[in-house]
């Protein structure tokens, strides 16, 4: 800063003039800094994307070549070109259980229904137990016990109860989802700032109003965080359910491919599931952004220049 050269000149100006001169100086500085920052950000983004593309080509290409050169056996490991052929075949001619779309539809229906029921159950019970200490103390240990059971095994029981149709898979998926959401909702309610609650009480809020205006919004950070994991569990529940027994669905397609020693088929189904999961993930992120719009931007978003 050229303070010494300008100080003389500034002495003869009024404070307002000095301020406006300073302001334009600052504005000019900021403009150059902004331009530089933008350039750097663009460059970095390009580098990151190039790095990602390179890594993808390396892995998939390496897989393809190694399989072609018989370094790894394509009979066991499949190969990318085979996976693509399998996918094209499914989408053009359907699977042995009907069109691939209906398989996807069945699995999605099971996963989504399980997700919705599980989330609802988890939130309601979590919020209730988080607020009513007596209930939490009484029921808590049992929830822990049930949580310790390998819940996938419950699938077998559900099949005995509900048969091979959709309901058994929905139930399995929702049980998996429930526990993830429940523990988060419960913890979220427990973490609510007592000052918020006391303030609402003094202002004359009823219990229900406190739940609605203070507890739920506060716990929402925790609950939405659990939704990402929860959807994964919903898909797992649906697929595993179909593994255990089904007439339709992606899980059945996978187990069929497995029975025919067709690794490309297994991988192809995995690709489809991954696409579904990524789509759902972005949907949940969108929802999270909407619900938690009030949150201050995190420090990573406000990058220092």
């Amino acid at each position: 800063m050229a303070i010494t050269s300008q100080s003389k000149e500034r002495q003869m100006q009024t404070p307002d003039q000095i301020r406006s001169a300073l302001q334009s100086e600052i504005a000019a500085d900021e403009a150059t800094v902004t331009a530089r920052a933008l350039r750097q950000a663009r460059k970095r983004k390009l580098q990151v994307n190039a790095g990602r593309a390179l890594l993808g080509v390396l892995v998939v290409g390496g897989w393809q070549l190694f399989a072609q050169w018989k370094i790894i056996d394509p009979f066991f490991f499949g190969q990318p070109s085979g996976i693509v052929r399998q996918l094209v075949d499914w989408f053009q001619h359907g699977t042995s259980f009907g069109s691939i779309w209906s398989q996807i539809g069945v699995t999605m229906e099971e996963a989504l229904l399980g997700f919705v029921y599980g989330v609802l159950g988890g939130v309601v019970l979590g919020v209730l137990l988080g607020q009513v200490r007596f209930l939490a103390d009484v029921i808590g240990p049992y929830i822990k016990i049930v949580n310790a059971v390998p819940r996938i095994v419950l699938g077998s029981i559900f099949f005995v109860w509900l048969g091979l149709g959709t309901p058994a898979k929905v139930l399995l998926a929702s049980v998996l989802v429930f526990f993830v959401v429940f523990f988060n909702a419960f913890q979220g309610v427990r973490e609510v700032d007592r000052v918020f609650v006391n303030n609402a009480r003094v202002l004359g809020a009823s219990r229900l109003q406190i739940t609605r205006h203070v507890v739920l919004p506060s716990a929402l950070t925790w609950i939405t965080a659990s939704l990402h994991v929860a959807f994964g569990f919903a898909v797992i529940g649906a697929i595993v359910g179909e593994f255990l027994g089904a007439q339709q669905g992606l899980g059945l397609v996978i187990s069929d491919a497995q029975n025919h020693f067709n690794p490309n088929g297994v991988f192809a189904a995995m690709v489809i599931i991954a696409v579904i999961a990524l789509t759902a993930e972005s949907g949940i992120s969108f929802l999270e952004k909407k619900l938690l719009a009030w949150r201050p931007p995190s420090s990573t978003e406000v990058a220092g220049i």
Partner: protein
Amino acid sequence: MTAAHSGQTLDAGADPGGGRAGRASARIELSGVTRRFTSPTGKVFTALRDVNFTVEPGQFCAVVGPTGCGKSTTLGMVAGLDRPSAGSVRVGGAEVDGITEGVSFMFQQDALLPWKTVLANVALGPVFRGVGKKQAQASARDWLGRVGLRGFEDHHPHQLSGGMRKRVAMAAALINEPSILLMDEPFGALDVQTKAIMSNELLGLWEELKPSVLFITHDLEEAVALSDRVVVMTSGPGTIKGVYDIDLPRPRGAVQEIRFEPRFLELHHQIWESLKDEVQRAYADTGGTSGTAGVEGASGSSGSSGRSKPAGER
């Protein structure tokens, strides 16, 4: 201060305390109040012992004392968030049972809900009392204007500075036109200049609405400058050491300037003589003990307070 004197000055005299109950309902009486806490290990800790003092209706009463002398506990009991283990807390002649009617609380920490806009935060008081949403928002808008925050209605609390958040909290506390205002070091976290400005605004609004104020602070200058009565407390356990009536004229004017009045200095000196020993003793005590302060437990409390102890350590 400009915004504070506009608006409802006229009805403030005719309809004090929101008209819920007359002025006499604003008298706060503590007699023989003792509060003990039991830690989870069964250790008993006496926070307050035999505390007696009265806040007259419309009086501005400050409580000063060293850290950990149970000042906040006292406020909690007046608000009805907590119960005394012995003795009685009366507001308007009636024993406090459940949340006290007509009370507003300004906390030391931020009590604004971060997920609500400034307007929605201020409107909470009327909404909780069953006022329609439109009317609640209109009155919140009015109050935001009175604390000089017109134009910030749709901001979220994190977008405001500390001083602005305190103004919002003040509007949120006053919107119900409380007959009693409890303030727990409300300006403790602010810088000196902002604190002075906020104090002036508080005085302006107080003179308009005239609620009884119980104001907790560490800052003796602040206490003398603002209040009609200063209560000095000892620590470990908290007891009353002295009660001083402040006879500085009202309206006080700028708190920055009243500090230079001879009478102010005299009172300040007099109270400081009493407070000094306590502060030194408390400081020496905290040097050696780990302290069970802040541990809340079940002790002699009953009814609705049982499930909602403030800051319960689980």
